[in-house]
């Protein structure tokens, strides 16, 4: 049986109903463990003090914000090529989740920035590209809302997602160029990447990251189911009216 058979709404609903309890439980477990361990069970950083605890929210949400966009890109492509409705609806369902993740990353980052850099916000390349990502999410959701015909909306938002991704990459380079060009150096501790955090922080961080990932999957499955039901209800209703 090919994986595409799950593009059928009924099969999809059945499978996702089976998976969801485990997903929700696992997500809740990981997030609680990660955050509680992180919040109560890790020492303060010698330089950053207790603010280092923010990392357990900041990094997972930032990661999921980007991954949500990748997932939308993928499902948009699938919709454009194979026209499976579930795929388009999954993209629709993921967007608000991505938006909230972006917002969490931005807010925790901003709160962290105040004690560390002495400012809520700096026009650092990574921060700036996140802001742009936030804008893309907003536009994408607004377009879904604005187009009345559901298939047309799926088409248009998919193309927006593709074109938007290209421009997001371009913006990323533009922003890097722009800020280096000004030699405006807020040195960002996160810019180095890789394992800059020591093991004490690393394990709970990993757990929290896995938790956010599971939460994302569970949310998207649930929300896709909702979208499918709404779509079906709408179709049935127009049906009935036309029968009369």
């Amino acid at each position: 049986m090919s994986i595409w058979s799950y593009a059928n709404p009924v099969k999809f609903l059945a499978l996702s109903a089976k998976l969801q309890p485990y997903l929700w439980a696992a997500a809740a477990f990981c997030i609680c463990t990660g955050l509680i361990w992180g919040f109560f069970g890790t020492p303060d950083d010698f330089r950053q003090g207790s603010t280092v605890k923010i990392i357990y929210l900041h990094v997972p949400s930032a990661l999921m914000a980007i991954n949500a966009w990748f997932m939308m890109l993928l499902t948009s492509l699938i919709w454009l090529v194979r026209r499976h409705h579930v795929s388009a609806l999954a993209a629709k369902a993921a967007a608000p989740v991505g938006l909230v993740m972006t917002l969490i990353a931005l807010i925790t980052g901003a709160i962290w920035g105040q004690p560390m850099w002495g400012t809520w916000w700096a026009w650092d390349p990574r921060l700036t590209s996140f802001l742009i990502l936030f804008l893309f999410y907003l536009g994408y959701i607004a377009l879904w809302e604005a187009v009345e015909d559901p298939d047309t909306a799926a088409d248009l938002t998919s193309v927006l997602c593709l074109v938007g991704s290209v421009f997001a990459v371009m913006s990323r380079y533009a922003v890097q160029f722009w800020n280096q060009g000004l030699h405006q150096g807020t040195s960002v501790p996160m810019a180095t990447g890789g394992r800059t955090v020591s093991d004490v922080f690393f394990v709970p961080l990993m757990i929290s990251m896995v938790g956010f990932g599971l939460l994302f999957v569970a949310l998207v499955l649930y929300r896709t189911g909702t979208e499918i039901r709404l779509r079906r209800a709408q179709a049935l209703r127009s049906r009935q009216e036309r029968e009369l």
Partner: protein
Amino acid sequence: MIALLLRDLRLAFRAGGGFGLGLAFFLIVTTLVPFSVGPTSALLGSIAPGVLWLGALLACLLSLDRLLALDYEDGTLDLLLTAPLPLEAAVSVKALAHWLTTGLPLVLAAPVLGVLLSLPASGYGWLVLSLALGTPALSVIGTFGAALTVGIKRGGLLLSLLVLPLYVPTLIFGAEAARRGAMGLDPSTPLLMLAGITLGTIALMPFASAAVLRMGLR
């Protein structure tokens, strides 16, 4: 009257109704400013009150063309004119609905955007206060502009042109109040002027708008 207000609000909240778009536009313009003038936070902080006021004004301006033009296009305005309803009241209600769906969210969002532009800490309260006092005037004046251009296809840009000069006094006093607040000076004089402008326009503009609308639909 209430029916009209409720309908306008309901339409704004429905899909495609445009609620939140003004806000999003405000957000985007504000984020574009650093891209164009550069990221230096001292520079940004010094222009922040002005930029935020200008952004709010533009967001308001751009949502004006939905204010009456949609009703004109589908014939609602003709029908409202022949309905037993004073046009002055109808116009005021439309301005109120516009402020509730556009101006008010801008006022609430302004402090958040102040962070992006490194607005000095002392400026937030005054910024919000000046916007809260000034945006109603923007909606009322904007309604007048919308009434002026109502018969014109896609008159959006023309509308902006007509309204912008009328916005100048509001902008000057509003931005001045916010700027003085941010610099720690006393902003009460411009705030008073601003309040005066708002009260005056709320009292008088609806009559002008209604008159213009009657002429325009001829």
